[in-house]
């Protein structure tokens, strides 16, 4: 069964983890959550977002909103998959840009 388990060269599993702080005034409300998901969904890797001991999928709007991540809260973002580094970089940039708000 070696064939089934063999990985294709591009399918290298990167694992990236990063902590980011929400800096926009209103926090991760509906509109930023939608932007987050729009970017996260462009990547094949799995993206998980955690706040304190709650972890959800970064591709779920309802999940992100459930975190209720207000200004100043810290999110731990984990990505696993072939394009994990890129995904994390884009998401971090989005959060740093204050979701084009304020």
């Amino acid at each position: 069964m070696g064939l089934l388990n063999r990985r294709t060269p591009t399918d290298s599993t990167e694992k990236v983890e990063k902590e980011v702080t929400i800096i926009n005034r209103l926090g991760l409300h509906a509109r930023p959550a939608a932007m987050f998901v729009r970017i996260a969904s462009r990547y094949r890797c799995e993206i998980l977002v955690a706040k304190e001991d709650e972890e959800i999928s970064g591709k779920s709007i309802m999940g992100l909103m459930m975190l209720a991540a207000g200004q100043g809260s810290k999110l731990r973002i984990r990505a696993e998959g072939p394009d994990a580094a890129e995904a994390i970089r884009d998401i971090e940039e989005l959060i740093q840009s204050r979701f084009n708000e304020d």
Partner: protein
Amino acid sequence: MSTEPVIQTISSVAGQRLNVPVITVETFFRRHGKNLQLKLESGSGGLERRIREPTINRPGLALAGFYTYFAEKRIQVLGAAEQSYLKHLTKTQRHRRFRALCEAKIPCVVVSRGFYLAPDLLAIAEETGVAVFRTPMITMKFINAATIALELDFSPVVTEFGSMVDILGIGVLIRGASGVGKSECVLGLIERGYSLVSDDVTKIKSLEGRELMATAPELTRYHMEVRGIGIINVVSVFGIGAIRTEKRLDLVVTLKDWQELEEMDRIGLDRELYEILKIQVPHVTIPVRPGRDIARLIEVAAMDQKLKGLGLNSAVEFNQKLIGQMIAQSS
């Protein structure tokens, strides 16, 4: 600005080709003669004249000889005031003044309150080719009723390519490229107990610029074309409850192929409007993908629209609750 909804308006292509219908005296008489209790007294030669403004004029000043400003495009009504004024003139004056009125380009004359026009005046109308009607209605009541009737007749009509369904009292126009599954979706809605107004081609009329009324073209009314089955009669197949003659338009739904949609609205905070005949109607775009129950989605969109009509916007309300909670936590 972030929590403020962004409002985007799409203009209907159909709305740009305005066509105001031509209303002749004959059309007016045929459509409203019964309601307005009109009787043709003389001058049937004038039935082809056009009514050029959707309202009524009382030609008091004109009968007094003042024609500098005269609303000759409107139906002229002779009420009690005009009648008694004509009576008070001498016979020659009366003939001259009435002839002058008839020789203006008026559509027709209506004598209200059940008065009769003197035979010599009727002869002048006959001679000049002006139709004269009688109605027992009180002048003011006649003017009100005739103005409303004319206003409706004059409303511009456009043809929209889309199917119209009444969902729980919400009139929904379903648009989308051909083959995207409009008819299947309409069938699904009829099966759920909602009523069809029109399949594929819908006539939309603006009522005094306030709201839009949708109906089916007379020929295709209550028929549908379903790919693979052909033309079906909706009344015969589903019963009389499955149809409705006309319905106010409350919501426009555009079905789009999943792949064509780059960015779709996922939260519903922003509003999209669809403009038809200068009236803006709420609009939603629903991505279509095999296996998705589009009829069900349209049903939910209609119900959400109904909630919005009551002033309840689920997305806005939820977001306010969320923001409130985040602020409470950080302080």
